[in-house]
């Protein structure tokens, strides 16, 4: 069985890798083919069937656990504006297009302001369990600001997990400091393991008081990245590797990147599409380098399935995002607003909320197990054992089909077969419903974004978009409103197979879909 997320057998293998400083090919990292046929931790594992120290690290982390991302929120604080390298997909004059929405200048924060903001958000949003420093520059190119923020938070909000993201150039010299601050998740952006390819992505790095360019710059960056990753693995820090998929430059090469980072103990690999709108002013944007289509992205992700675990729920959120992945409540927490807030950090209230979420997750898991049995039966009866289709889901969180079609700013995409409902990504769309009325000109772009899907599961949909979707060959489905997503998707699939078998409908392949450029829209 293949799973996009980490399997339990792999977690155990990974624990072995963590125990041994030098990860070997056999024990190192994490593969995504399920060890011993067990299910994935992101979607169905529990505290009983994985090493407790790893479960504790990932269970409430929306970026590390696909399942947790339905329930828990993260926030980024923009205390690290400086960077030590230049990337062709990034325009430093505005924002980092990798980690934040380009074109919108973040409100830079001092460490003291950042800490105040985190405490304000945490007391308002109990599901906020993770604080990351992700730029807008490089967290480790601003070590004083980054670690000062982390130090204060360890004191004042000890239940919040700390993480940071980096390009890796300064990583080896910072590993001791990272461990000192209880930072147990680090994201490294690695786009290549071949300096010749790197030279097409990185025009220069700032290294030993000099600007170094070309293949030499990429070689130094590559060596620092690999060294840093190995050091973190040896210390038991969980690592996520971010890679930007740049068609024609590193698309096939990312399979090798996946292999190399797995070998060095990476916990997760997140392959993201290049964002390259010309108006963002990046080198790639200005030279017409295009981003990948939905199926191009999925093809590379699928090709990496035997390697390091893939993360597919990344939203490429901005460096000051607040909330569940896919939402951004940063507007509610600007500096002026925080000043007026009465901040009470109630750790018990937070814990009570998180326990409630835990119970909900268990129920979701059981619903999925039950639905899987039904889907298996139906596909066998229909003679469709190998059938795999994509469905789009409108959700507001809690792992349920609970959003009106017209209110969706993104759809989650699940690949459904008789074996599983596998989360494979998300697609951003423009709101169909604005001010209570449907915007018909938005429909074609929504259809384009989910054109590779056979159905769209929603809590409700108006008559007009329903007919349009049907005409485009996408089945609008309201029957599973407020059900758990996996159960809804598998039950719909069982029904689909039954209809194909009875001759009521004919199964047809779908086309490709377009990835909408730009990161999460402010709500």
């Amino acid at each position, binding site marked *: 069985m293949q799973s996009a997320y980490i399997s339990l057998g792999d977690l155990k293998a990974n624990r072995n890798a963590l125990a041994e400083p030098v990860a070997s090919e056999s024990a190192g990292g994490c593969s995504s083919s399920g060890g011993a046929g067990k299910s994935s931790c992101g979607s169905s594992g529990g505290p009983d069937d994985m090493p407790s120290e790893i479960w504790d690290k990932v269970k409430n982390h929306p970026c590390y656990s696909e399942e947790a991302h339905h329930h828990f929120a993260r926030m980024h604080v923009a205390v690290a504006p*400086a960077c030590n390298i230049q990337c062709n997909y990034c325009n430093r*004059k505005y924002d980092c297009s990798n980690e934040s929405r380009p074109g919108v200048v973040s409100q830079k924060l001092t460490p003291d302001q950042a800490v105040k903001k985190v405490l304000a958000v945490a007391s308002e949003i109990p599901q906020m369990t993770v604080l990351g420093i992700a730029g807008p520059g490089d967290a480790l190119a601003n070590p004083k600001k980054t670690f000062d923020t982390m130090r204060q938070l360890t004191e004042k909000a000890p239940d919040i997990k700390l993480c940071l993201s980096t390009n890796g150039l300064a990583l080896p010299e910072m590993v001791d400091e990272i461990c000192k601050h209880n930072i147990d998740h680090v994201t490294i952006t690695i786009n290549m393991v071949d300096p010749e390819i790197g030279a097409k992505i990185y025009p220069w790095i700032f290294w030993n008081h000099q600007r170094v360019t070309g293949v030499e710059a990429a070689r130094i960056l590559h060596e620092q990245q690999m060294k840093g990753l190995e050091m973190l693995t040896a210390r038991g820090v969980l690592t996520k590797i971010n890679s930007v998929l740049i068609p024609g430059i590193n698309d096939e090469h990312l399979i090798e990147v996946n292999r190399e980072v797995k070998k060095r103990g990476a916990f997760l690999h997140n392959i993201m599409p290049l964002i390259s709108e010309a108006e963002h002013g990046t080198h790639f944007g200005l030279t017409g380098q295009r981003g990948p289509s939905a199926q191009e992205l999925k093809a590379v992700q699928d090709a990496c399935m035997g390697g390091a675990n893939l993360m597919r729920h990344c939203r490429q959120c901005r460096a000051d995002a607040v909330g569940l992945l896919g939402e951004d409540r940063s507007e509610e927490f600007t500096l002026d607003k925080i000043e007026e807030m009465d901040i009470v950090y109630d750790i018990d209230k937070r814990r009570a909320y998180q326990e409630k979420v835990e119970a909900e997750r268990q129920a979701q898991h059981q619903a999925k197990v039950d639905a899987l049995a039904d889907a298996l039966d139906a596909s066998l009866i229909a003679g469709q054992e190998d059938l795999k289709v994509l469905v789009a889901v409108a959700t507001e969180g809690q792992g349920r089909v609970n959003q009106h079609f017209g209110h969706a700013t993104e759809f989650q995409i699940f690949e459904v077969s008789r074996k599983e409902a596998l989360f494979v990504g998300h697609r951003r769309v423009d709101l169909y419903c604005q001010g209570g009325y449907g915007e018909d000109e938005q429909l074609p772009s929504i259809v384009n974004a989910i054109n590779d899907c056979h159905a769209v599961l929603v809590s409700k949909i108006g008559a007009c978009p329903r007919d349009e979707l049907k005409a485009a060959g996408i089945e609008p489905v309201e029957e599973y409103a407020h059900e758990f997503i996996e159960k809804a998707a598998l039950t719909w699939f069982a029904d689909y197979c039954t209809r194909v078998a009875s001759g009521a409908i004919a199964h047809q392949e779908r086309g490709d879909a377009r990835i909408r450029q730009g990161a999460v829209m402010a709500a």
Partner: protein
Amino acid sequence: MALKIIGSTCSGCSACDPECPNDAIREKSGVFIIDPAKCTECEGHYDTPQCVAVCPVDGCIVKA
């Protein structure tokens, strides 16, 4: 001899500030400025001016 930062193109990223061996750079209204009295263009410290080498905006730091 000294360098200056063209304020209209400065992104305010602060990368230059800690690299200056003369402590000549400071923030003012969201962008950075160089104190010409302190700036030596890094002569005696480094081969190239550090702020120019680390600045992400081409042409943002020029001779005063």
